């Protein structure tokens, strides 16, 4: 191995111009790999965090009631069955379900929530809103409004409420200002404890966040909740976990993937195009390395023949050329990862989303580069190892 490495290095050094050119090719290939991967991955993360930062990853609610037809002997033929009229469905045994869901594999947080429509008003200004009530620390695990507070405090006890900046502007609300929330149960007065800017218009313009108890009172659901919001360890497992919850509990569980099909399709398309780009880039790198090594084997036929004549085994010759591929892969990986990371960081300064350099992408790129170097060297290395020494020395074999 030591000798093979020594010879490989010397061969590369001898063909310096060729080596530098292909090394530049590998570096650019790996840099493109890192750059594309980091951009796509960061873009996806940004899209996901924007989407999932303002909604639950799984929403669990009581099952929709089914219309059932009572049949008699010689019964009536029904041409059409109407769905039942919408009405409030109590979430029976929600506390028990919370405990079950908290111990479900893959579920990292559960937040019982009450949400119901209301009319918010201050003076003559009115706006239709969604009153959201939940335990503040549990809600924070699902929608982190605390980190998005523009002013005020993350408090929802008593008559304290959080409102979005859109709603605050619409109603002219300031910190501590009272406003009315009216439902069919009558009006309730709340005070603004904090104003948030979540970046999602539906929240900023329409949410009034208060405690679970206050929201239960406002919406006329004492002791009840409308849904259980879940966060999961792996967002891409949400659909599977939701299906398993439905099967286990008989409740209705809808994942973010089901609610955001278009986004999911867009993410998958991005993934596919990114994979294609990476595959083609690495194929080009592999062909570059292979072509340089094929030429190197042809140029060094005589030398390989002599080395074989004076005692070099086929395995050593194979190793010398494989190591040349590996050296291209390793050095190209080091330079390419650095260059790609620098480009990605540079672009990160001008994009609207932060570009993260994930260790998995950097390590993956380095390993793929090494594997590409080895695989692309395999063919030339085998042909070098199979050279007939006598023919190679004669220069005709």
């Amino acid at each position: 191995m030591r000798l093979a490495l020594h010879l490989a290095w010397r061969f590369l050094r001898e063909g310096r111009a060729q080596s530098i050119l292909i090394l530049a090719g590998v570096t650019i290939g790996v840099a493109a790999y890192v750059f594309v991967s980091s951009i796509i991955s960061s873009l996806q993360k940004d899209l996901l965090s924007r989407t999932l930062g303002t909604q639950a990853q799984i929403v669990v609610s009581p099952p929709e009631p089914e219309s059932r037809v009572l049949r008699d002997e010689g019964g009536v033929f029904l041409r059409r069955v109407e769905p039942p009229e919408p009405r409030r469905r109590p979430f029976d045994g929600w506390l028990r379900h919370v405990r079950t869901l908290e111990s479900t594999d893959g579920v990292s947080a559960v937040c019982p929530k009450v949400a119901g429509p209301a009319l918010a008003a201050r003076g003559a200004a009115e706006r239709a809103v969604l009153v959201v009530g939940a335990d503040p620390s549990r809600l924070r695990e699902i929608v982190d409004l605390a980190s998005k507070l523009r002013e005020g405090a993350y408090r929802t006890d008593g008559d304290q409420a959080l409102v979005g900046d859109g709603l605050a502007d619409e109603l002219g609300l300031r910190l501590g200002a009272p406003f009315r929330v009216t439902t069919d149960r009558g009006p309730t007065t709340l005070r603004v404890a904090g104003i948030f800017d979540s970046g999602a218009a539906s929240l900023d313009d329409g949410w009034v966040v208060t405690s679970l108890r206050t929201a239960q009172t406002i919406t006329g659901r004492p002791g009840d909740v409308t849904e259980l919001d879940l966060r999961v360890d792996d967002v891409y497992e949400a659909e599977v976990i939701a299906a398993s919850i439905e099967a286990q509990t008989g409740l209705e569980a809808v994942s973010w993937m089901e609610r955001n099909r278009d986004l999911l399709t867009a993410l998958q398309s991005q993934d596919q195009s990114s994979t294609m780009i990476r595959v083609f880039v690495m194929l080009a790198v592999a062909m570059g390395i292979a072509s340089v090594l094929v030429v190197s084997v042809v140029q060094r036929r005589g030398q390989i023949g002599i080395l074989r004549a004076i005692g070099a085994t086929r395995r050593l010759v194979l190793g010398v050329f494989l190591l040349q591929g590996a050296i291209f892969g390793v050095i190209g990986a080091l330079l390419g990862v650095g260059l790609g990371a620098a480009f990605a960081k540079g672009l990160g300064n001008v994009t609207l989303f932060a570009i993260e350099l994930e260790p998995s992408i950097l390590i993956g790129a380095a390993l793929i580069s090494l594997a590409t170097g080895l695989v692309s060297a395999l063919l030339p290395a085998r042909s070098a190892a199979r050279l007939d020494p006598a023919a190679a020395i004669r220069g005709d074999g």
Partner: protein
Amino acid sequence: MSAETNDAMLELEAVTKSFGEGEARVEVLHGIDLRVRRGELVALVGPSGSGKSTLLNLIGLLDRATSGVLRVQGREVGPLDDAALTKLRGETLGFVFQFHHLVPALSVVENVMMPAALRAGGFDAAMRARATALLEAVGLKGQGERLPRQLSGGMQQRVAVARALMNDPPLVLADEPTGNLDTQSSDQVFELLRERHRELGTAFVIVTHDPTLAARCERVVRLVDGRVVADGTPDEVLEDRRARKA
């Protein structure tokens, strides 16, 4: 095994070598019988195309005979696989080629060390010391760190001789070792080989077109059209040539 066999460095019995197949098949060597004893200095002469280099490749275990038996130090090589042949070659044989055939990517001293490094799997200080001493012995003191292309043809051929002797092989095969050299370099290189032969009893088989060089060997084997047509002392074989000319 006879006493003669015990003394034999190389034995060839009815060795043939063909190239190609079917109608394109050409037999280059036809039933060669040859025995080289330990410590012999043998010149292999013959016109171009007589099969000298082919025979040298067979003896050097670089190629396999089509038929017949080849023994190196009493060991039949026919049944050996490639790895065993490579090992035997590294332990038993040294090579000097017509066109120097040094590895241009390696320094002079590394070229000389290479046969030992291939056996040991790497370079070490003892090897370097021995290679440096060999370079000194062939008149190349202080040239070890240079690259082959920085040396003249004669100097490169002396490096090739030093490399051939690195493992102290009992047999050195030289293919036109002075073929591309001027008279002075040619003499220097041959003297090096002869010194080694005298001092260490190394056997040499030297392929040459040069009758002067052949005349300085102990034994001359003449090959014509793939057959040994004469085998004896230089006087016998080279006189025979003169007689045929006359």
